[in-house]
């Protein structure tokens, strides 16, 4: 039972001041084992805040990040799953499923987490899953102004992953979940 928080595109302080209060009240230290962040935090204070939630923090570089040392892509193994992380502005057309699938094959992962579009999406595609946690602060994107703050919490338990999607719609937190299993036919 490993809890992994996936979020990104906060754009603090340029486009948003902070995470929504309702999100912050839920995110307490001690519950989450890993945090993966797609990028565009953008400042060190946000990095420190995320570090206080969980010491195991993985970030990839977004185009507005002020820390240039973050890598472009990252892969990690949690339990039986391989996760890949990338901001997504490098993959053109932005948000295109086939191009993201190319990236997934390149990184050789089961679950690819990317951002940049500021829209939550979860697809399964050709033996892998692509998850876009959206923007945790609801910051506007290059594509649209209408963005609901959202993030994703994955519960990895053996061969099964339960993805809890947290969205702030009209001031209320809505939680949905998505269930999937890894089958034996997937690349080992």
């Amino acid at each position, binding site marked *: *039972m490993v*809890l992994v928080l996936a979020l990104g595109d906060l754009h603090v302080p340029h486009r948003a001041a902070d995470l929504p209060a309702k999100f912050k*009240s*839920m*995110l*307490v230290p*001690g*519950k989450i084992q890993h945090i993966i962040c797609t990028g565009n935090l953008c400042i060190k204070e946000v990095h420190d805040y995320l570090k206080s939630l969980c010491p195991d923090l993985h970030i990839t570089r977004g185009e507005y990040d002020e820390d240039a040392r973050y890598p472009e892509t990252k892969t990690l193994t949690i339990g039986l799953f391989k996760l890949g992380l990338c901001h997504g502005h490098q993959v053109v057309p932005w948000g295109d499923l086939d191009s993201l699938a190319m990236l997934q094959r390149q990184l050789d992962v089961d679950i690819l987490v990317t951002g940049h579009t500021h829209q939550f*999406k*979860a*697809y*399964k*595609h*050709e*033996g*892998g*899953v692509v998850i876009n946690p959206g923007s945790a602060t609801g910051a506007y994107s290059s594509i649209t102004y209408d963005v609901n703050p959202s993030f994703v*919490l994955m*519960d990895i*338990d053996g061969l*099964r992953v*339960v*993805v*809890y*999607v*947290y969205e702030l719609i009209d001031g209320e937190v809505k*939680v*949905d*979940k*998505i*269930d*999937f*299993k*890894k*089958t034996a*036919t*997937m690349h080992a």
Partner: protein
Amino acid sequence: MADGANPNPPTARLRQKHVPDWLNSPIWSAPPPPARHLSPPRAASPPTSPPPHQRRDAPASPLPHPPPARGDDAGSYDGSDGDEGAASSSRPHLVAEFTVALVRKVVDLAELRRLACQGVPDAAGVRPIVWKLLLGYLPTDHVLWAYELEKKRSQYSAFKDELLVNPSEVTRRMDEMTISKRNGHDLEETGVLPRAEIVHDEHPLSLGKTSVWNQYFQESEIVEQIDRDVKRTHPDMQFFNGDSSDALSNQESLKRILTIFAKLNPGIRYVQGMNEVLAPLYYVFKNDPEQNNAVSAEPDAFFCFVELLSGFRDNFCKQLDNSVVGIRSTISKLSQLLKRHDEELWRHLEVVTKVNPQFYAFRWITLLLTQEFKFRDCIHIWDALLGDPEGPQVCGFEPGWWGG
């Protein structure tokens, strides 16, 4: 003490001061009352509870049961290597007596208690059965034993299943019940993954009181404390703290027992020290020479632990600290008992040095003396504690003598 040169060290010391009368009473030199079914008279019950230790101070007395080999117990009492207690296992008289008492179709508890007060032999797996009977885990009628054991052990498995499972499992089971056939998201197909509504706020970050996840995280603090305490239990003993996988599985068993107890008793949860009370129980049951019983040491220890604690759970409840049944009043009762039996010592503690009885009595009472003596001796002391008809509470008052 093994040299037997000074048969009565405590009394020799006291002889210079006023010796309480009961210490010089003829009861120590006379054989015990011949009628086996008579328990010792109530009035004498405080003095009879320390017999295992006082009697050995008079090895020359013609006691029918213990041969002078009893003097070996004094060796362990004096703090020299505890293994001398192993000599008690070679007392065939006692083993025979116990076997006779236990083999009867309906065990006579009063007699068993009387026998237990003298000390249970280590041999032949006598002790686990005696303790289970004394704590009321096994009924006195032999015929019911198999049924009762089966019932209790399966109840424990049910507890484990229900209480020790993590929230992921719980939600998975809930899903399997509500959604009968989801075709598994084989990950071969392509498409947007369908989103499902969650049931009453059951997500990992939930702050709701009824949420499985929230309860899990709140209890994780208790679980961590139990983990820390179990790792510190008896660090010198291979059984609990060795490097072997056995030691690890013993620790896991202790942790499970304490966690289930804490979850079933939200009133007292887990208090530091419960691990010490549990340790001798589990040790004795796990070392039962009979394999069936040793394998089920965990459920047996759990229920016996519950029985043992039920006698004095009030001592652990913070709200009751100052009440009539709480720990403060127990300590003051102990102090009064001390005053009655040895006024001189009491005066020295209370008046001259003004030592608050809490400093010595608290640990004695709540941990049933497990921290005061070596482990081997504790087990012998517990034979008498559990054997006393009034239960550990009354016997708990006697430590004043062993310490004094």
